[in-house]
C-alpha cells in the first residue's frame, strides 16, 4: 500500500494504568472499573479546597521498574510537574504529571517483525488519571455526569522515538510492551477496561531516491532534519488492531494529500471504530499551552544508586531471557519457547510441570512432550494442575512403551474370536473396527489408548488370514 517513494514515520505514546492498591496521591482504592460512580473518592482525588497530594511509593517504584525493563536510564533526580488545563473531568484544573525530569529516559525495546529491530524509548513517566464523563439522559434531559472514581489512578506514560515504519511494526511493539507489562505484574493492561490506551503519532516522509527532483519535493514536504515538519496524533485507541487500522488509514490519507502536493495539517485526530476512520479534533493553532511548572506540593525525588539497583533486582525474568533459557535448558525450538513464554502464566505452568518430573520420569517424559501438550491445548491449563497434567501424559505414554507385545497378543486373540467383525471391516464397515477396538480396550483394562489400538488393529487385520 505504501508508495515506494514514501515511508511512514510512526511514534507511539502509551498510557498504562497501574494496578496498585491505592490511587496515585491518596488512599482511595485504585480498582475503579465497574464500581458504582463516585464511591472511591476523597478530598484529594476530588481536588477539594485545601487537599494535598501525597505520592504513592509503590506506583513510583513500578514506574521505575518498567523503565528498567525497557532498558532506560534512571536519572537520580526526578520531580513532578503540574500540567494546567481546563476540563470537567480534571477537578484541580491541572494534572500532576512529569515534564522535563521523568523517572526513566533513553530506553529501547527489541521487536521482531520479519527481522529484529530496536525501537528507542524516549521516556517513561508517571502521572494521574482523570475522572470519567458520562453522557446520559436524566429526567428526560441530556446531560453530562462526572464519575471521579478513576480520578487520581496511577498512570504511566511510555513515549517512543519515531522509529516505527509500519502499522505491523507498531502492533508488534505494542504486543511486546503489553507482554512485558504483564510479566512485571504492574497493570492488568486490559485494553477493554481502558487500562492501556494507545496514541500513535504518524507522518509520512519521502525516501531518498535517485530522483532528480528530490530537492524540490523535500522542499514541498517541509522536512525538519530527517522528519517531516508535521505529525498527526490519533487519540485514545483501545486495541492493537484499531491502532494498526488507524495508522494505515492515516498513511493512506497522508499519501493522497502528499501526492497532490499538499502537506497534511498538524493536528490531533480521533478514531471512529465503527466507521474505521479518523476525524479531526484539534488543530495546531488550538493546541494547549499547558504552562507546566514544578509541582510545589511534592518534594523532588532523589534516588540513590542502591535504591535503583534494588529495584532492578526485583524485576522478574523478562520474555526474551525466558525464551533463551527455555531453548537452552529444555531443548525446545524457538517456536515452542516463544509460545510457552507468551504469557508468564503459561511459562510458569510449564516450569511447574517440569518440576513434577522425578529422575525416573525424566527418562520417560521429555520437556518437549510436555510443551506439546500445552501448546496443542490437549488440556485446559486453567482447569488442570501441572501435577495432573504430568500424570495424564504418563498414563497415556506408558502403554505404548511397555505393552507393545502384550497388546499384539491381545489383538490377535480378539481377531481370532471375532471373525465376523473382521470380515465386516474388510468389506468396508467402519463400525466393525470400532467394535474391535472396544473389545481390545476391555481386554487391556484401559491401559492402551484407542488411537494406538486402532493403528495396531488395522496393521494386524491387513495381514490376518481370517
Amino acid at each position, binding site marked *: 500500500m505504501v508508495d515506494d517513494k514514501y515511508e511512514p514515520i510512526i511514534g507511539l505514546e502509551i498510557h498504562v494504568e497501574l494496578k496498585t492498591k491505592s490511587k496515585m496521591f491518596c488512599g482511595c482504592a485504585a480498582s475503579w472499573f465497574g464500581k458504582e460512580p463516585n464511591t472511591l473518592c476523597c478530598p484529594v482525588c476530588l481536588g477539594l479546597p*485545601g*487537599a*494535598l497530594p501525597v505520592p504513592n511509593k509503590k506506583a513510583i517504584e513500578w514506574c521505575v521498574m518498567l523503565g528498567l525493563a525497557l532498558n532506560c536510564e534512571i536519572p537520580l533526580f526526578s520531580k513532578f510537574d503540574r500540567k*494546567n488545563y481546563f476540563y470537567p473531568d480534571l477537578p484541580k484544573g*491541572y494534572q500532576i504529571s512529569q515534564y522535563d525530569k521523568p523517572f526513566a529516559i533513553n530506553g529501547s525495546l527489541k521487536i521482531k517483525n520479519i527481522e529484529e529491530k530496536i525501537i528507542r524509548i524516549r521516556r517513561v513517566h508517571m502521572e494521574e488519571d482523570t475522572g470519567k464523563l458520562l453522557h446520559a439522559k436524566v429526567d428526560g434531559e441530556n446531560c453530562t455526569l462526572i464519575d471521579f472514581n478513576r480520578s487520581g489512578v496511577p498512570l504511566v506514560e511510555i513515549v517512543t522515538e519515531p522509529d516505527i515504519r509500519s502499522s505491523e511494526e507498531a502492533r508488534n511493539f505494542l504486543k511486546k510492551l503489553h507482554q512485558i507489562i504483564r510479566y512485571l505484574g504492574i497493570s492488568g493492561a486490559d485494553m477493554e477496561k481502558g487500562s492501556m490506551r494507545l496514541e500513535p503519532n504518524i507522518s509520512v516522509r519521502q525516501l531518498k531516491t535517485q530522483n532528480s527532483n528530490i530537492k524540490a519535493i523535500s522542499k514541498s514536504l517541509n522536512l525538519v532534519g530527517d522528519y517531516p515538519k508535521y505529525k498527526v496524533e490519533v487519540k485514545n485507541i483501545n486495541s492493537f488492531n484499531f491502532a494498526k487500522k488507524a495508522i494505515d488509514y492515516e498513511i493512506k490519507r497522508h499519501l493522497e494529500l502528499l501526492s497532490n502536493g499538499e502537506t497534511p495539517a498538524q493536528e490531533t485526530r480521533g478514531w471512529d471504530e465503527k466507521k474505521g476512520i479518523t476525524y479531526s479534533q484539534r488543530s495546531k493553532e488550538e493546541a494547549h499551552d499547558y504552562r507546566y*511548572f514544578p509541582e510545589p506540593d511534592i518534594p523532588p525525588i532523589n534516588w540513590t544508586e542502591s535504591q535503583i539497583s534494588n529495584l532492578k533486582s526485583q524485576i522478574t525474568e523478562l520474555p526474551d531471557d525466558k525464551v533463551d533459557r527455555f531453548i537452552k535448558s529444555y531443548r525446545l525450538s524457538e517456536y515452542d519457547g516463544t509460545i510457552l513464554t507468551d504469557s508468564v502464566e503459561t511459562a510458569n505452568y510449564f516450569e511447574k510441570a517440569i518440576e513434577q518430573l522425578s529422575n525416573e520420569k525424566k527418562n520417560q517424559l521429555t520437556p518437549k512432550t510436555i510443551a506439546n501438550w500445552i501448546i496443542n491445548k490437549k488440556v485446559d491449563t486453567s482447569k488442570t494442575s501441572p501435577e495432573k497434567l504430568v500424570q495424564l501424559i504418563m498414563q497415556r505414554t506408558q502403554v505404548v512403551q511397555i505393552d507393545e507385545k502384550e497388546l499384539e497378543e491381545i489383538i490377535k486373540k480378539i481377531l481370532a474370536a471375532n471373525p465376523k467383525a473382521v470380515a465386516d471391516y474388510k468389506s468396508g464397515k467402519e463400525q466393525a473396527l470400532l467394535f474391535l477396538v472396544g473389545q481390545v480396550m476391555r481386554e487391556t483394562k484401559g491401559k492402551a489408548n484407542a488411537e494406538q489400538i486402532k493403528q495396531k488393529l488395522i496393521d494386524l487385520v491387513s495381514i490376518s488370514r481370517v
Partner: protein
Amino acid sequence: MKSDIVELTIKKLRDGISQKQFSIQEVVEAYITNINKYESKINAFNTVQNDEEIQILIRALGNNTEKSLSGIPFSLKDAYVTKGVTTTAGSKVLDGYQPQYNATAYQKILNQGGILLGKNSQDAWGHGSTSENTDFKIPKNPWDKERVAGGSSGGSAAAISARMVPFAIGEDTGGSIRNPASFCGITGLKVTYGRVSRYGAIAYASSLDTVGPMAKNVEDAALVLTIIAGKDPYDATTSPLPVPNYFNELKRGIRGKRIGIPKEFFQEGTDKEVIQKVKEALYKFEELGAELIEVSIPSIDIGVAAYYLLAPSETSSNLARYDGIRYGHTRNNFTVETMRRIMIGTYALSAGYYDAYYKKSLKARTIIIKDYKKAFEKCDMLIGPVNPTPAPKLGELTSDPVQLMLSDVYTLTQNIAGIPSLALPCGFSSTGLPIGMQIMGNMFDETTILQTGYAYQQATDWHKMKPKL
C-alpha cells in the same frame, strides 16, 4: 478577676480551670462577650459559631478537661477548611461552602480540647496585605478603626487584639501573619516551610504558604506551635524533624546570642518612628546579653519582583479548580485583585514568557536563599521591622496596587527562603499605632526566635497594651 480572664495567657487559663478558679464555661463566655460587644465595630469574623455549636464542643470535652487546650477558645482564618462550618477563604466563589473534612492544624487543636469560636475575615485567597480585598467583612484596626488591620490574616489579628479570642491560626504566604500582627500590636509566627501541615489550608501559593499561630504573646504562640507542628501523612512537604517542646524551652534566655541587623531592612522610605522603635528594641536585646552584628541581605531588592511572579504563578494554578462547575459560583466572583494575580501568573508561566519570568524568579529565589544562609553563618537570628509604616488608613493602599506590593517589602523574602520569622510589638507611633519588629531565624530554628521574643516580652510591656474599644 473574671473580667481579666481575657488578659490571661493560655497557661494561666489552663491553670485557672484546673484549680477551679473559673470554669471552662466562664472562659468561653468571657470571650463571647467581647465578640458580641466588639464584632460589629471590628469585623473580625466571617462566621461566628452559634452558642449551641460552642456548647456541643464544650460538652464533647466530657471529662477530658486536662489536655493542653481543654476549654481554650480560638478562631481560624477563613482559609482553613472546617467540617460543617462555612469556609470561604474570603471569596464569594466559595460563598456558603461547607467543607467535608478538617484541616490538620484545626484537627490537632480540636484533639487538644480547643473550642472554635469562628472563622476570621481576610483578603480573598490571601491576596492582599490589608484584608480589604474581600467579598465579605473588612476587618478594622482595633487601635484606630479608620485604619486597616493588615492582611491577609487581618481578622485573626484584630480578633486577638480586641480580646475576642486568645489565639488564632493565621496563614502567611508573604507576610500575611506578621503584617497584621504588627499593625494590631499582637504576636504572630510565620513558621519554617514544612514545620506545620498545610493540609486543609486553602492554597494561595503552595511553595510559600505557611500555617502559624497568632496570639497576645510569644508564650501562647509557642504553646500553640508545639501542638500544631510536625510531620503530617497528608502533607508531603512537612518535615520529619522532631518537634521540640517550644513552650518548655522558652526560658533559656539570649545571653551570648548573636543578632544580625540586615542593613537593607532599614531603607529609605521606612517610617522614622518604625526605625527608631526597632532600634530601641535592639538596644534592649544588647542589654539582655545579646551581641549585635551588622549583616546584609542584598537580594531584598529583588524580593518583591520575585514574589510577585512566584506567588501569582502558583495561585493561577491553585485557583483553576474554582472553574464554576463545582462549588456553586462562577469565576466572575473573583475580585479584581485576584483576577490580576491570576492573569500575571498565567502570563508568567506561558510558553515564550516562562524563561523571562517564572524561571527567572526561581533563580532569584536561589539567590535569596543563599543570602540568608550566608547571613546565618554569622549570627543566630536577624531582626528588622515588619512593615515600613504603621497601619495605613482604609482605602489608602488599595487604590495603588504597586504601593500595596511595596508595603510587603520586608516580609516577602522569608517566605521565598522558607525561614521562620516571629512578629511582635516593640512600641507605638506618636499617633498611638502599634509598631512591630520581626525576629527571623534559621531553617527549623523556631526555638531560638521564640526564646528571644519571650526574653523581650519578659523585659517589656508592649505586648500587654490593649486598644481602647
